[in-house]
């Protein structure tokens, strides 16, 4: 799941664009695997992007929402 459509499109087609031609070859290995069907890249809206918590400081409500979604819970809730 990725929340950037341009990045998803990059994994799907081989077209070189003037703005992407500097990206190193080693980063393009995903295209091969997407082609073979090893994995599939889909779009997810930013609101439901669970990996958000690992990349930037977040406001309180959003932080707690993501924490619960990831299964990080308080033991008092069920023991």
């Amino acid at each position: 799941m990725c929340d950037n459509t341009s990045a998803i499109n990059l994994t799907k087609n081989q077209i070189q664009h003037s703005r992407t031609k500097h990206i190193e070859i080693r980063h393009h290995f995903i295209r091969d695997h997407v082609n073979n069907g090893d994995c599939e890249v889909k779009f997810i809206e930013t609101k439901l992007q669970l990996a958000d918590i690992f990349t930037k400081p977040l406001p309180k409500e959003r932080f707690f929402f993501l924490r619960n979604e990831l299964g990080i819970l308080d033991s008092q809730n069920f023991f």
Partner: protein
Amino acid sequence: MIDKTLFIKKSNSEIILVQIYVDDIIFDATQDSLCKEFVAAMKDEFEMSMMGELSFFLGLQVKQTKDEIFLCQSKYCKEILKKFEMEKCNEASTHMPSSCYMDADAARKGIDQTKYRGLIDSLLYLTTSRPDIMFAICLCARYQANPKESHFKAAKKILKYLKGTTNVGLWYPSHSSIHLISYSDSDFAGYKLDRKSTGGTCHLLGSSLISRHSKKQSCVALSTAEVEYIVVVSCCAQILWLK
């Protein structure tokens, strides 16, 4: 194999897993007879005692019930708070403010490096059961070479957050699907010193978190699409390994 102390034995469709750490061993199998066989074989060779169901391993507390497994490090968390004399501090609701701005802070006087590193190191081990504080710790860890008062303050804020959430841990329900879903995300040029971006991925099997990472990228990117693309690639590499 990435972990050299994890042993797997497969016979027909049954599997036994054995994890060894110095003199502690944990093991489980899909069938009871395999477990008994293993215990008998080990008792022949070594002197050992059975501790029964797993409840404590390397500072990790494990609670098992029929429907779920719960991992937490509340004892370890309390130890850290004691070690850094923060037992009586006020609780904070989050681990870092959303408008957090951190830089090298070169003008200020430095603080004791050993203490700062000790704190970061202790906190890093805590991320085993607390991935929620991972980003904050990684951010603090970047300033280990030349820590200043402001960095120590940020690290203390994490401790304050931990004070209020010592019992929080990872929860694994037993009845969840086995669909592997991975999420990848990144910020854009979030690190103030070299303008590199931080990427984060997490992998969920059903609803249990099985793998995650948060890492500053090694190259400077020109666009958000490029940043996200690089994270997706590292996410893909992890998926291939998990498979």
